[in-house]
């Protein structure tokens, strides 16, 4: 048994023993669970992939004379400005003004909110265009200017839903190509796409949210941030296997961090043909080894994590609940999937390579004493379900 305080003291002294969720598997195999639980202080987990429910609050500072922005576009991407005078929220999936979307199907979606966020993080210049109706105290009605992230007072990423615990594997059972947020799915089950870092993924290493809670420190694209809330659609009551690992989406995290401290290589705009735009983010989360049970859960292997194969030509959109098959991440990563006697080619939306890189970076930061752990102030819900939206004809 260890406490957060004991672990943080070791981190501060530079003596903490830190391993990635990849390394811990063999380590525990070799040393045994009890010995490893004594020795290891922190296991680092990570993931990198599209996280659509992401965006940032920006504060521009006041021009002379002042404007109370009512509509705003950055590089022609609409921002939400129904908040204070020069604050806006730029969302990852917002299309660029005049993007033809799917008018010429399948659309290309070359640029949008996610791409502008990437530009901002990289320190590139963007154009602000904003309008107002004008008031006595904020008389300006229009503004057009160039700025970069250093000109802003604040640029704070606030993401309502990141780090899905597990995710659907998408396949297409129809005879036409379908264009989805998991990429292009060829007809007749020619290919499938998964989206998880498997045994490296944060919430798959802490399936019952024993250490990752509200207030936990996270490495968000290179910036030290934290979990600010349960993620939207957080649904812990999903189906789980004997090791408590969910076989479907399940838990999610609301994350926030200072965008000015982020690194461009971990904040990438995404263009999904026929679907839209998004933002890929790199997230690393440390798991403190408070006891042997917590450590045991971090030794989960790809072959012990299953995901549901869902037909994205019919079952997904119609919520039929039909599951074509269940597959594990070892087989997915080895391109070794056969469904109904047919070999299916595998693609991934999540970058295992980047996740591995992030788990290593976070490991080094903790070892150097640069990344202390925060004690979560509140546990994520463990018993709630997820509602659908009913279409009512009357109030």
């Amino acid at each position: 048994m260890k406490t957060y305080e004991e672990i943080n003291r070791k981190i501060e002294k530079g003596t903490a023993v830190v391993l990635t969720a990849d390394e811990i598997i063999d380590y525990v195999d070799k040393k045994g669970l009890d010995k490893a639980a004594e020795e290891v202080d922190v296991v680092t987990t990570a993931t990198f992939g599209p996280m659509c429910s992401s965006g940032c609050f920006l504060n521009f500072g006041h021009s002379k004379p002042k404007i109370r922005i009512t509509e705003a576009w950055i590089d022609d991407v609409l921002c939400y400005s129904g908040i204070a005078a020069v604050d806006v929220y730029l969302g990852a999936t917002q299309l660029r003004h005049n993007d033809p979307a799917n008018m010429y199907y399948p659309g290309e979606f070359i640029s949008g909110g996610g791409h502008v966020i990437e530009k901002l993080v990289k320190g590139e210049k963007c154009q602000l265009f904003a309008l107002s109706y004008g008031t006595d105290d904020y008389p300006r009605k229009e503004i057009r200017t160039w700025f970069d992230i250093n000109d802003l007072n604040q640029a704070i990423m606030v993401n309502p839903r990141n780090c899905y615990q597990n995710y659907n594997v998408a396949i297409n059972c129809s005879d036409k190509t379908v264009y989805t947020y998991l990429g292009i799915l060829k007809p007749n089950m020619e290919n499938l796409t998964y989206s998880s870092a498997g045994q490296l993924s944060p919430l798959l290493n802490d399936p019952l949210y024993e250490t990752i809670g509200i207030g936990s420190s996270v490495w968000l694209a290179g910036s030290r941030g934290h979990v600010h809330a349960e993620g939207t659609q957080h649904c812990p009551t999903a189906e789980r296997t004997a090791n408590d690992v969910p076989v479907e989406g399940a838990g999610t995290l609301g994350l926030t961090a200072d965008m000015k401290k982020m690194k461009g290589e971990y904040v990438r705009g995404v263009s999904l043909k026929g679907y839209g735009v998004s933002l890929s983010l790199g997230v690393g989360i440390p798991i403190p080894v408070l006891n042997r049970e917590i450590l045991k859960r971090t030794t989960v292997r790809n072959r012990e994590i299953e995901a549901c194969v869902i037909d994205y030509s019919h079952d997904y959109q119609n919520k039929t609940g039909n599951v074509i098959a269940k597959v594990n991440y070892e087989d997915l990563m080895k391109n070794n999937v056969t469904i109904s006697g047919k070999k299916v080619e595998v693609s991934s939306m999540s970058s295992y390579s980047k996740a591995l890189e992030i788990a290593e970076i976070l490991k080094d930061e903790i070892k150097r004493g640069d990344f202390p752990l925060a004690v979560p102030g509140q546990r994520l819900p463990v018993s709630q379900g997820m509602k659908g939206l009913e279409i009512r004809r009357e109030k």
Partner: protein
Amino acid sequence: MTITKKVLLLFPKSETEKPIVYHLVKDYDLIVNIFRAKVTPEEYGYLVLDLTGSEENIRNGLDFVKSFHVEINEADRGIRWDEKKCIQCGNCLSHCPTEALYISDPETRKIDYNEDKCVQCLSCIENCPYGACSSIF
């Protein structure tokens, strides 16, 4: 010895109506496999193709092509994979029919591109969410 060489031919405006490929087959005994071509009168054109035959015949065939002021590019053959833009997700893997895009290291799942295997189907360009694959024309 029979070898196969992949080349990119860039045609100047004036040469596009000459039956160059016909002569490569007929006069130089070469097997021609065309991956991608745009040969339009009054415009610059291109042809990406495999030439299979004896080393000597390929050399002589390419000398013949050069005599029409056709530019031969053996280094850049039309499709580019930008390692810096690639995030190594592997979404391209099921779309690349020849494993030109492939996992070079199963441990780290890093992606690499083998231009020799590319048949220029352009599927990767359509699919890559990060614009890592592109065509020079």
